[in-house]
């Protein structure tokens, strides 16, 4: 009988824990079209693979709050995504706004430690009010709750980390978004240091949640968020898709995938994407889509630093990172935001053994007062430093323009394993029009300008680069996909089974 009573208590406690903040709160969310934490887990992981860790947790600060702090507001555990193990933390907003306190901090720490030590991706789904009050108040609260785990925010990129923001995501949810290798936000979510209410009290500044930390700010201005989605299920689809390109940990190569039918079918038309007039621009994404396995381009930060395109894709079934200039924006000139986006992406690819393909068409780094005010030289040198630290296979294709310092940053010289160029490539220290003025001292419309310009242009053509072996191949554009697939195989890291040196694993991104 005693055993029976114990089992009865077990079931009662379990039911209570599973009910989170209570049926009423769950119903309210459902009516508002929001999923609860357990529905999120069900959608994210393979069926019946979730093993919960800490179901019976509750407030570690106030024992008398046990009934109102089921799971302590954050669900943790292990599941599989596409058959591969992951560690999960999913906030339950119905329990004290999923605020951070003692017990749930231990849960997060255990998930992070296990993910790191045993080589599994870590996925954290945010929706939170921030630190729990009054738990963290006062010197005793601070001493008890904050800063006692030095690994909490240490990132050495041993395993891929994904973070999501759904709804208000203050405090730890915001910090984790900034630390993640992939951060996705649903429209309507707020990612910010503090709430509009606190901002209003402290500064007297009236600001909407959207203006303070909404999707448009992070997608277009701060670049802190990698993708923005409309619907909740798309948050989880994006995370699954991101992880599909990644290894489970940094000591293995990313998984291969079957090559979709129709891949490469547009290569015979790829050259026609390029306008014949060099003053006209085009969308580099059309070239990327033709080169990559069909429908595999997964773009990162599409609305930020748009003169660069970065994204994960597959070539011949292998994960690759694409780093490209996009002449459609700023003519392909790289500004401070574009540099930061590229550097962050080089860090990601190199840390997780994803080979890189650079597609080059840039008139150079953005010049002008705005660029200098944005600290362009610092960003350019970070880019320069980062490309020298890439240890995964990286191949450059010069599509059209490649000028000045940007030529080197985009892999020029020996900064790529292999450089191929299209016959349209033009490489020089600066754009021919400006070079003509500076070298020959004649301006547009002045006598002798056209002849001098023609001379300078000829000196910038692809054959000079090929003659001195600064390009190892000149390609017919339609052969580029096959060439890259073959060269990624030639340059693969045989000795280390595809594992690079991760020289940028501790590089702080998100700045």
């Amino acid at each position, binding site marked *: 009988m005693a055993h029976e009573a114990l089992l009865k208590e077990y079931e009662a406690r379990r039911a209570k824990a599973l009910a989170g903040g209570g049926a009423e709160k769950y119903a309210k969310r459902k009516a508002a079209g929001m999923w609860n934490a357990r529905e999120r887990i069900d959608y994210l992981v393979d069926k019946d693979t979730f093993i919960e860790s800490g179901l019976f947790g509750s407030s570690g600060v106030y024992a008398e709050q046990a009934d109102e702090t089921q799971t302590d507001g954050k669900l943790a555990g292990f599941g599989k995504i596409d058959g591969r193990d992951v560690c999960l933390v999913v906030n339950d907003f119905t329990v004290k706004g999923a605020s951070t306190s003692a017990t749930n901090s231990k849960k997060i720490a255990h998930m992070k430690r296990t993910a790191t030590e045993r080589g599994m991706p870590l996925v954290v789904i945010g929706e939170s009010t921030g630190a729990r009050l009054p738990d963290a108040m006062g010197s005793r609260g601070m001493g008890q709750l904050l800063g006692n785990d030095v690994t909490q925010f240490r990132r050495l990129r041993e395993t891929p980390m994904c973070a999501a923001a759904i709804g208000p995501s203050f405090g730890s949810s915001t910090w984790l978004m900034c630390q993640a290798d992939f951060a996705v936000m649903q429209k309507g979510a707020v990612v910010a240091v503090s709430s509009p209410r606190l901002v209003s009290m402290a500064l007297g500044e009236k600001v909407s949640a959207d203006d303070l930390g909404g999707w448009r700010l992070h997608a*277009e201005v701060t670049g802190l968020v990698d993708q923005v989605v409309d619907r909740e299920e798309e948050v989880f689809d994006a995370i699954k898709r991101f992880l599909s390109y990644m290894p489970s940990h940094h000591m293995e190569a990313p998984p291969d995938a079957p090559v979709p039918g129709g891949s490469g079918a547009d290569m015979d038309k790829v050259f026609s994407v390029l306008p014949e007039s060099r003053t006209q621009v085009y969308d580099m994404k059309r070239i990327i889509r033709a080169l990559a396995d069909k429908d595999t381009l997964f773009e990162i930060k599409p609305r930020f630093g748009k003169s660069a395109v970065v994204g994960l894709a597959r070539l011949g079934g292998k994960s690759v990172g694409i780093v490209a200039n996009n002449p459609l924006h700023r003519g392909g000139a790289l500004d401070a935001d574009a540099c930061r986006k590229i550097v962050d992406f080089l860090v990601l690819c190199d840390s997780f053994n994803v080979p890189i393909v650079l597609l080059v068409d840039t008139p150079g780094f953005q010049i002008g007062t705005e660029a200098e005010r944005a600290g362009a030289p610092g960003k350019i040198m970070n880019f320069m430093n980062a490309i020298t630290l890439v240890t995964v296979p990286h191949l450059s294709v010069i599509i059209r323009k490649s000028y000045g310092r940007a030529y080197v940053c985009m892999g020029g010289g020996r900064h790529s394993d292999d450089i191929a160029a299209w016959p349209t490539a033009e490489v020089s220290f600066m754009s021919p029009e400006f070079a003509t003025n500076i070298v020959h001292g004649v301006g547009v419309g002045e006598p002798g300008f056209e002849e001098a310009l023609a001379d300078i242009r000829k000196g910038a053509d692809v054959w000079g680069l090929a003659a001195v072996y600064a390009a190892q191949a000149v390609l017919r554009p339609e052969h580029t996909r096959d060439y890259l697939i073959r060269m990624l195989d030639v340059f693969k890291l045989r000795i280390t089974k595809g594992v690079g040196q991760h020289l940028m694993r501790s590089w702080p991104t998100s700045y």
Partner: protein
Amino acid sequence: MASIDIKSEITGTVWQVKAKPGDKVESGDTLIVIESMKMEIPVITEDAGTVTEIRVKAKDPVAEGQVVAVIEG
């Protein structure tokens, strides 16, 4: 529905104005073309909507970040 500022990404001169108030636009449409660095550089909307204002005309100088059009989307 929100009012969205469309900004020039680059300093240059307006070469062509391709949209007018009342036009329905889709994500990726070109509203204005700027001449800069000897190239024709489009000002593109990321959002779909209806053009409510065009604030520049051909040959106007524009600065990086300047609002050149507004759409309701």
